């Protein structure tokens, strides 16, 4: 019987094939929009079924290979991520449907790989056992590789690096699922969940480490994070924003599934590390804290707008995982909500940056400035986006971060809260750099004729920013979706209303917050316009510095070394041990390769045989039974 999930997957498959065949067509973007919109509708229908009391929507697709059954079905958690996927696909296709599409030399590959990624992710989030999970995981990894490598050059290099990380992670995962099967006798999630409390501690630890490492690579948890920023940044526009918004979240999905749903936070908290006050969960929480801080400050040092945002993506992933690992209904809701919120504002930000790149042909923050007058709507998108990224009201990023902080407070983990604050501080500093270097200050001469981005690109950007604002104003809208995801996890739901959440020790109602904020801004505007308005409009080049007139060809827009003092302080972190570890590993492989290769180039091959026989007989003499 063909159910909703089957329809969804078949539609995704047809979209992939169709967009590969017709991808060079100028209407390919619109075809994609229609397809992703249809998929989103189906996902919403699935959501209605799920909120109607069903635990999962099954697929008719099932295989049995070598006695291992494989099934697909979508539960609340998978549904949540499926919605993000199809939604992000829709906005990416929208962005690619007009002028952007005309400018691309490789339309077919851009459209085709996007559809392939959507298909792969849908397959992954609807996997019904460890085997189908692994298959989906691999397909997602390779689909992302296909998307990243399309432009060649530095993109191919970054993609290859990603591939090796992803494959190493996949191999850890492979080992993990095989150990699960050895321990429980099947690949089924249910069997694992039932058996895991009774497994030996060593096995639990091995599984925990393997799964965390395997999924963590995709999430770019430190120290597996080096690949992500370059790989995402060199991918062309809409594809890059798609990757940034949801691709890395597949790791979060899988981690939530295995660590929270199947193993459970209580089990993790019970796995103590001897001679320390850490257990598996708190150790991972601290790794998460490092992931929030270090990449954020690395983002601060970037001079490429795309890299800056991509590095933030890594840090933001840390917030999501932090909330989820807290394991209370509030923390889980915060983490999942942050996933949704991040997808909206990060995608808006990336699209805005790529709109700038589309117009100016550069993403170098040292080469931009003053574009506020040329691209005002892009500026507004970026402004709303960075408010969300920094976690300030009235945007949605504030709500989810607030919930995460609150859950840390409620579970008495102040040190982690401080770590999260340090990360947020870095975020605020770096997003100011982003908006300043692109839009404020002196407009470059060569950008004097730059036009605003075309409507086909502005509309998706502004819509996303709008969603970010609306769900910040009325977080209940997003939280009711989070409910469906949370209901699949078995931890309990976080009660909420349209404006936020009610908690015994301090509630949040964004309806009030936003209202107060708007009122305050209104008061400010009143004061600004009617009481002290001393402004008049001048040309952007009508500038003075130290009393001297500055002509347009004199560069004074200071963007080099934006935070020199801070850079000196965090410099040692910037080129850290992780990079050295990666290099060391490469060198080790190369040296081993040369050693092995040298063995095969030796002239006197019988010599090896002599050595092998002698040593072998020695071994026989030592270990053989006499």
């Amino acid at each position: 019987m063909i159910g909703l999930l089957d329809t969804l997957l078949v539609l995704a498959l047809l979209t992939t094939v169709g967009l590969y065949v017709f991808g060079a067509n100028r209407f390919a973007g619109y075809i994609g929009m229609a397809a992703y919109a249809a998929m989103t509708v189906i996902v919403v229908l699935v959501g209605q079924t799920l909120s109607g009391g069903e635990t999962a929507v099954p697929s008719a697709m099932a295989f049995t290979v070598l006695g291992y059954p494989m099934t697909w079905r979508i539960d609340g958690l998978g549904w949540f991520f499926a919605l993000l996927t199809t939604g992000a696909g829709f906005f990416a296709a929208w962005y690619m449907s007009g002028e952007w599409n005309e400018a691309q030399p490789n339309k077919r590959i851009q459209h085709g790989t996007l559809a392939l990624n959507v298909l792969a992710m849908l397959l992954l989030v609807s996997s019904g056992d460890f085997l189908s999970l692994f298959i989906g995981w691999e397909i997602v990894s390779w689909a992302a590789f296909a998307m990243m490598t399309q432009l060649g050059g530095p993109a191919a290099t970054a993609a290859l690096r990603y591939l090796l990380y992803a494959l190493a992670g996949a191999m850890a995962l492979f080992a993990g699922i095989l150990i699960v099967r050895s321990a429980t006798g099947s690949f089924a999630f249910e069997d694992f969940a039932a058996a895991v409390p009774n497994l030996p501690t060593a096995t639990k630890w091995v599984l925990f480490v393997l799964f965390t490492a395997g999924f963590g690579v995709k999430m770019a948890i430190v120290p597996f994070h080096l690949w992500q920023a370059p790989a995402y940044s060199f991918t062309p526009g809409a594809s890059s924003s798609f990757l940034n918004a949801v691709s890395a979240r597949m790791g979060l999905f899988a981690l939530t599934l295995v660590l929270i749903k199947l193993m459970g936070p209580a089990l993790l908290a019970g796995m103590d590390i001897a001679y320390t006050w850490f257990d598996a969960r708190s150790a991972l929480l601290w790794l998460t804290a490092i992931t929030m801080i270090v990449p954020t400050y690395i983002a601060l040092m970037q001079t490429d707008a795309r890299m800056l945002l991509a590095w933030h993506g890594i840090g933001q992933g840390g917030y999501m995982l932090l909330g989820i690992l807290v394991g209370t209904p509030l923390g889980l809701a915060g983490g999942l909500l942050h996933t949704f919120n991040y997808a909206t504002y990060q995608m808006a930000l990336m699209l805005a940056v790529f709109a700038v790149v589309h117009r100016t042909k550069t993403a170098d923050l040292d080469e931009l400035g003053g574009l506020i007058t040329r691209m005002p709507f892009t500026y507004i998108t970026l402004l709303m986006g960075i408010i969300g990224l920094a976690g300030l009201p009235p945007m949605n990023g504030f709500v989810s971060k607030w919930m995460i902080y609150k859950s840390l407070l409620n579970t008495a983990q102040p040190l982690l809260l401080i770590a999260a604050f340090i990360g947020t501080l870095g975020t605020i500093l770096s997003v100011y750099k982003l908006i300043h270097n692109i839009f404020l200050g002196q407009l470059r001469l060569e950008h004097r004729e730059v036009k605003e981005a075309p409507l086909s690109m502005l509309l998706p950007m502004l819509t996303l920013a709008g969603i970010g604002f609306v769900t910040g104003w009325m977080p209940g809208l997003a939280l009711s979706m989070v409910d469906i995801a949370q209901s699949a996890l078995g931890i309990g739901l976080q009660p909420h209303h349209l404006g936020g959440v009610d908690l015994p020790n301090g509630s949040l109602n964004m309806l009030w917050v936003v209202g107060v904020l708007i009122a305050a801004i209104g008061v400010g505007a009143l004061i600004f316009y009617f009481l002290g308005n001393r402004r008049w409009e001048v040309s952007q080049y009508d500038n003075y510095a130290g009393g001297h007139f500055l002509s347009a060809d004199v560069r004074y827009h200071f963007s080099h070394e934006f935070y020199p003092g801070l850079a000196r302080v965090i410099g040692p972190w910037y080129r850290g041990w992780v990079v050295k570890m990666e290099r060391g590993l490469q060198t080790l492989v190369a040296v081993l390769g040369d050693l092995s290769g040298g063995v095969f180039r030796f002239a006197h091959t019988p010599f090896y045989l002599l050595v092998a026989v002698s040593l072998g007989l020695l071994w026989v003499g030592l270990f053989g039974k006499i």
Partner: protein
Amino acid sequence: MTSGANTLVLPIVLPLLGAFLLPLVARFGDGLARALGIVLVVVNIFLGWTLWSAVGTEAAVTALGGFEAPLGIVLYGDRLAALFVAVLAVGALIFWPRAEHGGVKAYTLTLLLVAGGSGLVLSGDLFNIFVFYEIVAVASYGLAASSGDKAGFGAALRYLVLGALGSSLVLIGIGLVYAAAGTLNLADIARLAPEKLSGTTGLAAFLLLVLGFGVKAELFPVNTWVPEVYAAAPMRVTAILAGVVSKLAMVVILRLLVLVFHDPAAISLLMAVAIVTIVAGEFAAYRASDLNRTFAYSSIAQLGLVALALTIPATAGILAAIAVALHHAVVKPAFFVIAAKWRGPLAGLAGGARVAPAAAGLFVLLALSIIGIPPLPGFWAKLVLLGGAFDAGGAYAFAAAVVLAATVVEAAYLFRVVARIWQPAAGAKPAHFAFSDLSPALLLGVILIVATLFVAPIGTALSGAAASAADAGSYVARVLPGRM
């Protein structure tokens, strides 16, 4: 004696007869000789298929010359043997030599390779296995040098020296077995092994046999001939040697392990050899400088995987070995087809995707499968292998970890090449593929895709073959019904 028993001898004897007649037939034209050779190979495919369907769980046995085992030589045809008889013939059919590489003599040698290889997997007698092993070996020495390429002679001589020394080791091993057990029939040895071969003598014999057969099975450290021979021999020869012939030696090691040497010391010996083979192969491939050698080293690593699979206890290990071996038999020859055109330094491959998109696409497909990416067949082979290893636990888990790490290295060198192929051409463009150049590889690619679609029935069939191959008790009972 089951009904199909007498046909057991045909897959060996018919190609042999053909080989003897081929020089005579060639007097009436080389084309006729070629046709006869191809017909005989096709007949062998048919015979392999017949044997496969004739033997279910019950293997066919024939005592040659009517001299009952263990006095005479027996042929033992189970599904494993039938499978490899057919695979060898299919390989020979797809990669039947070109007229310019030796003509009728090369056809003759290929037929002899088919005959010898079939004998190798069908024979149930240790010394007889050695004889057929030598036929295969000598035929491949000749074919390895048949390119007329300058490097061919040196490489073939290196191969021969190593192979002949390895054969001497095998002979010593056989001598030790005979001196201890007084019989050469595998079933009889299996019957006597717990009593006579469990000590140092037996272990030493196993060591010598593994090292000797390991020359063909590309086991470390007796595989040093591999890169040069595969780089210098004609592509069609390389494809057969790497794809099929190396596995035949593995089948012999499989029989020895299942029937005779199952003591833990022997198993751990083979496991150590297998792990070193995997590591040496993958790492050497990482630093190889051209496609031919890359694939040669990769082939070494894959055979290390097969050897590792053999050490995994019970049916799981044998199933894994068969699966990995079969998968490699499809993938590696196709790789060598591509490498035959894209010779020279890897840097020269830039722009390949533009010149030959079909070859580039096929390369990606093959690379994905050999790395083990689902849902391609290579993934299922690795799943069975690693699943068995983790089930066995202990040192096997360590071996599995090595395999997983080696897989990452494998992906590194294969996708480094893929990235190169998709780069814009820097200088001279890589060679173009005519359809006839690429067609064997395309055929294998189609086989790979079809296998992906039918992975479930294939898995079931192979499981059955593995289960019967793993059943030492029924082997002895079938061959020596009166002496249990």
